[in-house]
C-alpha cells in the first residue's frame, strides 16, 4: 500500500457514470429553477451535428428549451418526438429547442436518428462530448429539460420525460413566456 496523500475529494463526474436515466416522469410539471440551484442559464457553447458552434447567448430574446438526453436512455428516446413537435409548433413564434446529447459520438447519434426516421435538422442537436455543460447546468439525470426565458432566466426545470407537449402542464408556461 502506498499512499501518504489521501485520494482527492474533488470528484468530477464523467458523463457515462453520472447519468441516471429517469425511468418515469414522476414530476410531470415545470419545477422552480431552485430545484437544481441555478436561476440564470449557465454558459452553453457547443458544436452541433454539422460541426458549427452554437451559443445560447445568440438566442437572447427567444424562449429556449434545453434538453439533456442520450440515445441509450429509453425515456429520452420516447421524449424525442415530443421535442421535435415542440420545435415545429412553436419555432415560428420564437422558441428554440436545443437537444444536448451527453457524451455520445456522432455516429451513434446519427444511427439513432436514422433508426427513428428523424431528420438531422428537426431540432438543433448539440454535442456535449465532455459532459461539461451537463455538469454546469447541474442536471443530475436524463432526461432533464430547462425552460429559459427571453432574458436568460431559468423559468422551469422538467425532470424526467416530457410525455405530451400538448398538455397544459407543458405548453401553458411556454406559451406564457412566448407572449411576454
Amino acid at each position, binding site marked *: *500500500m*502506498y*499512499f*501518504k*496523500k*489521501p*485520494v*482527492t*475529494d*474533488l*470528484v*468530477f*463526474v*464523467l*458523463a*457515462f*457514470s*453520472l*447519468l*441516471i*436515466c429517469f*425511468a418515469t416522469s414522476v414530476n410531470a410539471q415545470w419545477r422552480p429553477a431552485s430545484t437544481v440551484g441555478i436561476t440564470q442559464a449557465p454558459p452553453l457553447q457547443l*458544436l452541433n451535428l454539422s460541426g458549427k458552434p452554437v451559443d445560447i447567448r445568440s438566442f437572447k430574446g427567444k424562449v429556449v428549451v434545453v434538453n439533456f438526453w442520450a440515445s*441509450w436512455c*429509453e425515456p429520452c428516446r420516447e421524449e424525442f418526438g415530443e421535442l421535435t413537435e415542440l420545435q415545429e409548433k412553436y419555432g415560428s413564434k420564437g422558441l428554440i429547442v436545443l437537444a444536448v446529447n451527453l*457524451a*455520445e*459520438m456522432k*455516429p*451513434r447519434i446519427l444511427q439513432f436518428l436514422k433508426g427513428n426516421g428523424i431528420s438531422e435538422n428537426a431540432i438543433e442537436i448539440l*454535442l456535449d*462530448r*465532455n*459532459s*461539461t455543460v451537463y*455538469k454546469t447546468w447541474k442536471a*443530475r439525470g436524463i432526461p432533464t429539460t430547462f425552460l429559459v426565458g427571453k432574458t436568460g432566466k431559468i423559468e422551469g426545470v422538467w425532470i424526467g420525460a416530457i410525455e405530451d407537449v400538448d398538455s397544459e402542464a407543458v405548453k401553458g408556461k411556454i406559451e406564457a413566456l412566448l407572449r411576454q
Partner: protein
Amino acid sequence: MMTITRRSTLKTIAGALVLPALTPLSKVFAQSSLEWTTYEIVTEVNLESPNGTAETWIPLPLVLDTNYFRTLAIRPEASDPKAVNQIYETPNKQARMLWTKWDKAATNHSVKVSILVSTRNRNLEPSTANPALKLSKEEQRFWTRPTKYLPTDGIVKVKTQEALAQVPANATTLEKAKAIYNWVVDNTHRDPKTRGCGQGDVKLMLETNNLGGKCADINAVFVAMARSAGIAARDVYGIRIADSARGYKSLGKSGEITKAQHCRAEFYASGYGWVPVDPADVRKVILEETGGLAVMDPKVIAIHDYLFGNWEMNWMAYNYDHDVALPGSALGSKGDIPFLMYPQAENAEGRFDALDPDHFKYKITSRRIG
C-alpha cells in the same frame, strides 16, 4: 512497511518491459502451479478519429501482485512509430494504465496491449486466522474514508444501522460484514437498463430509494455501508476473462470480452486479510441465470453463500481506484472519471464515449493459455 510517495509514477515502455515482460515465457510457465491458470488478454484500440492529436488510456492489471492474481507481462504496441506509449501509475498506486499519445501529424490511432496474467480462486478459511494480518492505522483510515459517491454518514449510516440491528455489539468483523452483505443482497436488484456497470452513486441510490443497478452500484453500496460500520472496504474493478467453471453461465465470459467489465468488492478482517465478496453477482444470477431464478432457488442459495468469502478467478482485476485523473487530459480535473474499467480516449473534439466500443472503437479478447 508501506512505501509512500506523492509523486505520480511514469514508466516508459522500456521501463515497463523491464518488468515481467522480459521474463522468458518458459520461466513464466515454470512458475505456474496446478491451481494457477494463465490467460492472455488483448485490448485493441483503433480510434474512429480524424488525423491529428489524440490520447488513449487503457486500464492495466493491478499494480501489485496478490496471492490470487499475478501480472506476468504487459506488451504494448502502437502501429504509428511516433506514438508515445507510457505505463502510468496513479499517485497512490491504486491503478495503472497504458497512456498513448499521438501528435498532430498522426494519421492512424491504433494501439494494442497484450497482458499475461495468472489467477487462482480465492477462498476464505474462517478457521485459520493469522494474527499478523492487520491494517495499519493509516491503511484503516484510507479504506474507511468517505468519498463523494461513497458517503459514510447520513442515510448510509442509517441503512448500515438497520443492517446491523440484529448483530450483537461484540460481533466480529466477519459477522458484521456478513450482515451488511445479506442486507445488500436482500435490498438491491440488478437493473438491466443501467448503462455499463452503473456509476456507484450510493447516496443518490439510497436517497431516491432506487437500489437498482449493476456491479458498480450494488457493490458500492456494500463498500459504503461497510466503511460506515468502520470496516475497511474497497471496490475492485476488473473484467471477466473466462467462463465460469461453477456452472453459472451469467458469471463468466470468454473469447470476446469487450463488454464483460465487472467490479467486485473486498473488506478487511484482521486475521484474515482482504476478504472477497460480490453481492452484485448474486443479484445477477437471480436476474439472468436460466432466464431468472427465485431467491430461494438452490442455485441462488449456493452462490449467495459462495460469494461471501470466495471469488472464482475467471476475472482479471484492474484496480481499486476512485476518482481517477487521466494524465495529460485536455479536460484537466474536469475530465476525472469515477473509476477506470473501460478504455478512455480524447481527440480535438473531446472525450470518446467509453461505453460505445463499436464507435470508439475498441475490442478486448481473452484466451486461456496455461
